[in-house]
């Protein structure tokens, strides 16, 4: 069986993604889970590049790998007592959860295989970032503004929640 380079990279990346995401949900030490989460998010950025979404890959690295993971690690360290090895990190629903996930996976994979996709062969625009910028300022300007208000609300909400009462 002959693989093209992009296929080889895809299989390598998806192997890393699947193994490290299993580590994220099963490791006992929550700090190690956070490190594997960073690895997973980085490999997903690689998948975005394979799919021709360079701008999305860059924002994935900036926002997820740069900001969200650091936030997670900060929260883990502030609640550090729970990171010790003795605490069991999973509850008694493990068997049920495995069955639910396997069922979901079987149903979705079966429906992917049995659907006739209307595959579009026309290529994406060459200048990805420029097109995204133009679309954000023209067609998608209303969701863009709404999202900025959501970010402001999240900022204020986090400050209000986490300050000490009466301060």
């Amino acid at each position, binding site marked *: 069986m002959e693989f093209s380079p992009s296929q080889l990279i895809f299989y390598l990346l998806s192997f890393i993604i699947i193994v490290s995401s299993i580590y*994220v949900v099963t490791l006992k030490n929550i700090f190690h889970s956070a490190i594997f989460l960073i690895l997973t998010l980085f490999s997903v950025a690689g998948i975005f590049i394979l799919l021709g979404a360079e701008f999305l890959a860059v924002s994935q690295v900036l926002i997820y790998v740069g900001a969200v993971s650091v*936030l*997670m690690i900060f929260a883990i360290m502030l609640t550090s007592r729970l990171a010790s090895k003795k605490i069991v990190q999973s509850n008694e629903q493990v068997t049920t959860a495995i069955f639910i996930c396997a069922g979901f*996976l079987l149903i979705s994979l079966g429906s992917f295989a049995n659907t006739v996709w209307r595959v579009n062969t026309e290529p*994406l625009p060459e200048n990805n970032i420029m097109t995204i910028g133009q679309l954000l300022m023209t067609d998608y300007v209303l969701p863009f503004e709404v999202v900025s208000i959501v970010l402001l*609300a*999240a900022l204020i909400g*986090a400050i209000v929640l986490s300050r000490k009462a009466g301060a």
Partner: protein
Amino acid sequence: MLQYLALAAILFAIGVFGVLTRRNAIGILMSLELMFNAVNINLVTFNKYVGGDVLAGQIFSLFVIVIAAAEAVVGLAIVLLLYRNWRGIDVDRINVMKW
């Protein structure tokens, strides 16, 4: 195209498993991030192979990333508040809002 969809489905299933079995509230938030990433892979794949509108899928997944960041910020603030008031973030113990 099917391989990307399969990867996204596997990632989403692992995320669901994490949300269902984790005790630690931060672990649940991390599994949620996995699920968001699976959805993003799906959106970008459909944008490349099936999409009719130019780059609509990529812009939508950009919005998903932004909303996920906002969700992580508010969720972790709530987790810190829980830790301050309950001396722990084990979600099995935090059941005052269960009827």
